[in-house]
């Protein structure tokens, strides 16, 4: 998508990741700002289902033409689903970072961690 957007129903990590928390699970991805900084994503290899991830640690890599970047976990949890479609169509991360460009779904270890994340306004403010 060409225009910056930061949906209000998501929580944000300062390392440019979003989380859509639904009960004890959350869907994760990277923000519009992150994909814009990267440029066209040419490769994303989803992590394995069943792996656990810790808040603030890298859980995957996303590659643009020129660079490799870590994807940071906004929350801790166990991976219950991954977006396999990104293997063949990594450009979805650019086209629809909050929809078809989602990366993983996790079962939260500590739902209280969401208190440490940013609202859309606060995240967008941090980009200025």
């Amino acid at each position, binding site marked *: 998508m060409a225009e910056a957007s930061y949906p209000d129903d998501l929580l944000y990590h300062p390392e440019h990741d979003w989380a859509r928390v639904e009960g004890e699970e959350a869907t994760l991805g990277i923000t519009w700002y992150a994909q814009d900084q990267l*440029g066209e994503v040419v490769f994303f290899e989803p992590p394995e289902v069943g792996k656990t991830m810790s808040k603030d640690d890298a859980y995957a890599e996303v590659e643009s033409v020129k660079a490799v970047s870590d994807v940071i976990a906004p929350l801790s949890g166990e991976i219950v689903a991954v977006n396999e479609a990104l293997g063949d169509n990594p450009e979805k991360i650019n086209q629809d970072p909050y929809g078809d460009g989602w990366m993983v779904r996790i079962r939260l270890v500590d739902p209280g961690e969401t208190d440490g994340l940013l609202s859309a306004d606060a995240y967008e403010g941090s980009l200025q």
Partner: protein
Amino acid sequence: MPGAQTLNRTPLFDRHEAAGAKLVAFAGWEMPVQYGGVREEHLAVREHAGVFDVSHMGEIETRGPQALAFLQRTLSNDVRRIPEGGAQYAVLCRDDGGVLDDLFTYRLAGETFLTVTNAANHARDVAWLIEQAEAFDVDVLDVADRFAMLAVQGPAARRIVRSLADGELPSRMHVCERRVAGVPALVCGTGYTGEDGVELLLHPDAAGEVWDALLTAGVVPVGLAARDTLRLEVCFHLYGNDLTEERGPIEAGLGWACKEDTGFIGADEVRAVRAAGPAERLVPFVIDGPGIARPGNPVVDGGEVTSGTMSPSLGVGIGMAYVPAAHAEPDTRFAIDVRGKTRDAIVKKKPLYRKDP
């Protein structure tokens, strides 16, 4: 950005900004890395025509009674073979055969030559050549400030430039003076993309007019990111990656550009390596499976990746790597350690991308 104010800007900087280019620091210059999208720009060059601002590249003029003899001593190729109005590729070697730069030299007149350098190496090349010139009756002039440079590349590039020019364009590996969009230009039948096209050397104050005329004629502005994917698909070397002072031209696969009998600086070492065979060779490769190898990734059996990207034309990870000479034959499989993950690669013949006949 600290030091940003010290970066050089090309005469087209304002146009790049206005076009929405992402600008990055490259070899001391603030250069457009992409305008719209890398893939789109890459394919525009493969299918139509693109223009690159490569004004960061340097130029050195060599002239005088011994200009030919001097260049024969310093450049690896046989400079005598360049006709007037001709061009030639060569490397500049140290005594030990290490590569200082790779460059194109154009013979503008009998004893007047123009050599185009890589931006990052320009100052060093000038200093090196002036030092070597002491023994010759020759003037070596840094004329980088005299030129802006535009590369117009792609299957439609010549037709479009011809429509703006006052005469026929030079054939491949030749150079001539023309007016392009009314502006005096040295038109060179060279490029770095594997496509047909020309490179234009222009007065810096007039480059903008030519740029505008090319864009009006439908040529797509292309940044450095696509320049890199285009050159890698056809296995052209990038100095600083595939060529360094620590590597010689034979292991880099540039033996064809070295004529040791001319007695160029470094020729003895190049001859010795050619005879004995190098320990490693630079090979093109494709990744078999997912993933992209990047410069610096180790080859598991020895050696390293020096260039690597996702090929927009082929849709697979491609690159070049130094591998043990015994494993350098096409179709040889080898493994690359990509940040802890092993990726399988296959040695290929050059070029990795070839236009359908």
